[in-house]
Every structure is written in C-alpha cells, then in structure tokens.
C-alpha cells in the first residue's frame, strides 16, 4: 500500500496490514510532528503534496525496493493537511523473512521519500505560520 492521505495514520492498523505469517521481521519508520523547532514551540504542521506525482514516485520506490531486496510487503503512507504535534506524518514499513533485508529496504524507502517526493510543510508556531526551507528535489 502506498499513498498520501488526509486521514490520521494509525500505527496498529499498518502493523496489521504488513504482518505476514511467512515472515520473521517487520521494520518500520514512523515520522512524528515534534513540539518544537530551533526557534521555539510548534503547534502542528500543514503538509501539502503534489499527490499524483507523489503516488507515482512512491510506486517507483516500491518497485526499486522489491527489485533490490528479498522482502514480502512494503507500505509507505504520507499525511497531507494539518497534522498535530504527536501525530504521525509518515510511515514506511517492510516485512521480510529476515531482519537485514527489512532494515535496508525500510531505510531506502524513507530516505528516498524525503529526497524525491514533492511534499512541503509549513509549521504553525507561536510566531505564526512558516514554510520550512527545503532541499532541491532529486530525480
């Protein structure tokens, strides 16, 4: 399952979907909204995405992961809209027979989402709303 979503992401639901009786390992990365930045308190983050392009890139990342590692399932979901402190902004989860493949594939997944997916965030702080300075998108 790969997607962007405006709905709350629940880790337990993702765990139920990724779990597979033929596999001995699940590795996941869960990104959360922090309550602070370098200047002070953060109340939440507005996430904006070029949804159609993100889903296409997530499909490519999924293909690359299945090509390069012997894994059983791959899930990558990114939130859009307003996400409060403590809520999940992104989750990547991988199931495989053994842990090594799952660790490597999960790491590849989140690193490539951050480098390649057109998603932007604006923090809501005590000083107002501010777009986060990002990085140039990678192909």
């Amino acid at each position: 399952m790969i997607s962007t979503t405006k709905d709350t992401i629940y880790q337990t639901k993702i765990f139920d979907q990724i779990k597979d009786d033929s596999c001995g390992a699940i590795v996941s990365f869960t990104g959360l909204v922090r309550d602070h930045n370098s200047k002070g308190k953060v109340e939440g983050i507005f996430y904006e995405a070029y949804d159609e392009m993100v889903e296409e890139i997530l499909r490519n990342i999924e293909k690359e992961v299945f090509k390069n590692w012997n894994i059983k399932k791959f899930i990558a979901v990114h939130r859009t809209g307003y996400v409060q402190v403590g809520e999940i902004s992104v989750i990547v989860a991988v199931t495989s027979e053994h842990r090594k493949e799952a660790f490597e594939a999960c790491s590849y997944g989140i690193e490539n989402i951050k480098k390649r997916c057109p998603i932007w965030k604006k923090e809501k702080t005590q000083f107002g709303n501010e777009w986060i300075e990002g990085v140039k998108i990678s192909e």
Partner: protein
Amino acid sequence: MNLTEYTTLKIRLFGILREKMDSDNLIISIHNTSISLKELRKYLEELYPSLGLNEINIVFAVNKVIRNDYMNVKSSDEIAIIPPISGG
C-alpha cells in the same frame, strides 16, 4: 486577419509559490506551439517577479517527471514548478 498562433500553458503551483500567487495555477500564452523550460523560466521571472523564481532553487516537473531546462513543453503537458521539498 491575425495569423499569429498562441498556445496556452497551465502551470501548477505548490507550497510557498501557490501561496505567493494565491492560486493553484498560472495560465500563460506563448507565441509558439512549444517552449523550452529554460525559456519558460525566464518568461515567468519577467511576468511574475513577485514569485521570486530567481531566488528559489526550483525545478520543473512535466507530466509528473522532473525534467531539465532543455525539454520543450506544449499545451497538452502537465507542467508544475517544484520549489525545494520538505516532506517527512
């Protein structure tokens, strides 16, 4: 009779650029049937100085794929300006 051909391009905006223009899209007309992304960037810089394209490290996506400045785009293409990203 005016024989000049115009092509309309729709350019999608996101993030800080969408907010600056208070719009999801820019609609522009060009004198030819296609234009290179390099020329388009220059044209947009002149037409919309408030976008600040010369100050931001933008790239273009065409039909949801990142493209370099030498690609030509036409009216049927889905063009988007991608400002620096910050997902995760």
